[in-house]
């Protein structure tokens, strides 16, 4: 029998492929550090284009023709105006794309989001820039845009002075029905995080990542709800039936004792369930465990955690880079996205991409792993799988955070 020291898993992340088939891998021209924006467009000429946000400068976004998933082809790759910003998030809806701009410091520009006409994928044309810059703002970290009408985003604002500098981004709803003139129509922030609030600011976490918005998901099944992850503040269900005046319906947090950074909330409407993810943001498991949680959400006012997706022994992964939950496939309400309330696919940085069967939500079961070898030049010496998207054909796209670019897979379970 192999001893622990002889195990390939402890030697430096040998590839593990379990119930996935790798169809293609594209390093994206040497700019393979990818963020958490992935969206599939069927272009007017019939090509299937996946648009990818980059983790950091110099690149803005990359478009890849994945009509044949075995032969991806980069058709467009754009540059950011400067190095002190990033476009971490994007979404497409038809031939319209929204790209989030976040600056590294307050009061830099451009900070906000930009709308593009992508009817010709090789030549995206800017339609408008929605400015969110300000003395206390870094702009937009993440956005949600699926209906062609409203951009829901985690954003700062010129007129928003946070009680703590880390709490600069909150929920904003922007009307883009006239895409050349986006207009904010509503906002919500966690009480106590804005100067002038009549309650005390929330206590800081030992690893302080801010009480600020992250994912801002809205689905047509409940168009009057926003499922809002709020990093160190946990998550909120908002009533947005009056978009100008969002109201809190419920709140759930796992921290403390966990270490904050709640990232994504995905409701599974038919089942009365909710998936909530944390994000690992520290290397070497300093913030372990970061998990995918399953909540009983049959009563949206009383969310009950009932399970987490099982993780491998973290000591095996604690040697380099991040390890833990991050993005999951979000059942984006577009025809080009796969929808499932039985399977959860999530990225776990050096834990790769993992799939879970949640048919029994009390006992999620791991059914697939894709943990490729460290791509050439990986600064942590490991894969750092960052985001995942599944198209309506069931083709899985997943990206590395640093250098590995795009991996295209088939589910085999």
């Amino acid at each position, binding site marked *: *029998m*192999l*001893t*622990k020291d002889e*195990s*390939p*898993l*402890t030697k430096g992340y*040998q590839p*593990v492929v*379990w*119930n996935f088939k790798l169809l293609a891998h594209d390093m994206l021209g040497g700019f393979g550090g990818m963020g958490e924006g992935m969206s599939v467009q069927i272009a007017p000429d019939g090509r299937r284009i996946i648009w990818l946000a980059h983790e950091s400068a110099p690149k803005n976004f990359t478009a890849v023709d994945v009509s044949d998933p075995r032969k991806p082809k980069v058709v467009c790759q754009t540059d950011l105006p400067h190095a002190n910003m990033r476009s971490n998030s994007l979404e497409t809806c038809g031939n319209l794309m929204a790209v989030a701009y976040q600056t590294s410091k307050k009061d830099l520009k451009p900070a906000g989001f930009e709308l593009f006409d992508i009817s010709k994928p090789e030549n995206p044309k800017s339609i408008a820039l929605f400015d969110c810059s300000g003395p206390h703002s870094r702009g937009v970290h993440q956005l949600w845009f699926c209906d062609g009408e409203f951009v829901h985003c985690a954003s700062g604002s010129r007129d928003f002075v946070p009680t703590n500098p880390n709490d600069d981004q909150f929920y904003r709803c922007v009307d883009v029905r006239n895409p050349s003139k986006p207009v904010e129509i509503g906002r919500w922030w966690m009480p106590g995080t804005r100067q002038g609030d009549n309650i005390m600011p929330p206590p800081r976490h030992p690893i302080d990542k801010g009480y600020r918005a992250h994912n801002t998901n809205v689905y047509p099944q409940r168009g009057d709800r926003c499922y809002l992850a709020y990093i160190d503040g946990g998550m909120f269900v908002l009533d947005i039936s009056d978009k100008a005046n969002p109201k809190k319906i419920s709140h759930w947090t796992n921290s403390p004792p966990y270490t904050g950074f709640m990232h994504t909330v995905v409701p*599974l409407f*038919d*089942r*009365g*369930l909710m998936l909530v993810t944390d994000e690992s943001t520290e290397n070497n498991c300093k913030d372990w465990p970061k998990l995918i949680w399953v909540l*009983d959400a*049959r009563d949206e006012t009383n969310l009950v955690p009932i399970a987490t997706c099982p993780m*491998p*022994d973290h*000591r*095996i992964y604690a040697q380099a880079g991040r390890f833990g939950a991050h993005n999951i496939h979000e059942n984006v309400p577009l025809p080009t996205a796969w929808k*499932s*309330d*039985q*399977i959860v696919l999530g990225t776990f940085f050096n834990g790769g991409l993992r799939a879970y*069967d949640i*048919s*029994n*939500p*009390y006992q999620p*079961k*791991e*059914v*697939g*792993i894709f943990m490729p070898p460290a791509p050439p030049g990986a600064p942590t010496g490991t894969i750092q799988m960052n985001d995942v998207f599944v198209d309506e054909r069931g083709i899985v796209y997943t990206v590395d955070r640093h250098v590995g670019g795009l991996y295209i897979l088939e*589910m*085999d*379970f």
Partner: protein
Amino acid sequence: MLDLFPSREAGPFGRRLKRERGARIPVTVVTGFLGAGKTTLIRRFLVSPEGQGTAVIVNEYGTVGIDDALLRGSADQTVLLGNGCVCCITRSDLQLALRQLLIDREHGVVPRFARVVIETSGLADPAPILQTFSTDRALGGEFHIDVLLAVVDAVNGESSLDGAAEARKQVILADRVVISKTDLAAGGDVERLSRRLHKLNPRASVDGAVGGALDVEHFIVPAGTERGGFIAEAEHSDGISSFVLEWQQPLEWLVFARAMETLLALRGADLLRVKGFLDVTGCQGPVVVQYVQHLAHPPVELQIWLDQKRSSRVVFITRGILEAQVRDLFVAVANLGAKPANGP
């Protein structure tokens, strides 16, 4: 679970799977009489690209050292499982070995393996091994037998089949049969043996191997997925026979389940292996059913009908049970009007 958390995506048998094994670990069971050449075949498979990441469980000690794979000994031992029926006597050491593999894998003590090959002892009856994987209570939740392979020695195979009921049963229950050492036997002998094996098990392909060389697909391509492979009635030795029941119209699950429950209750010990695809009323894809003596595998609904031809076919390998008796039982249950109340 569907009562509390319903899903339109799931069918009455749960999540629809792409293939029968779903996400479970595929298992290849290699049977064969003493000296048939099982170890040589396995060794050749392990050095092939497809054999990488295979864990091996050997039913006998000291058989062979295998590089790049796990080698576990699991000596013969029989124990009585919970319900006390003699059909449930199975190898607890095999269960323990497989469970330990899972535990070690989760702890990172052993690498992630993608397949398990079990080499049985020469005298082993395959039925208890099949039972080991039949239910969640056993190992059916984690492992799935993709292939049951029987190895028959071209030189001594005839005499083994003549002299040992175990050897015959190994062939009768197999998904695939391999004749080994064909280079050491006269051509006529191999042909005669091949005909006999076909007669014993018309469902299984019979292929030759020289020096352990065998198409690796025999080890890894799941058996029983080709519905054309189900051959109609065949008479075997030892009172064993096989036959196929077919239904062109969709089946009510309750009719099928009740008929099988009756059959299992009355003659479970004589149902050596039952496997098939059902076109069940209300289901989107084929429902795969499998029984080994009185143990039933949980039914699995697949996502699609691969051949677009919806019909039900079930092969029965039985001892002392006639096709007409089983057919009459299904007709009788259907005539009683058993209707599904709320699915299975």
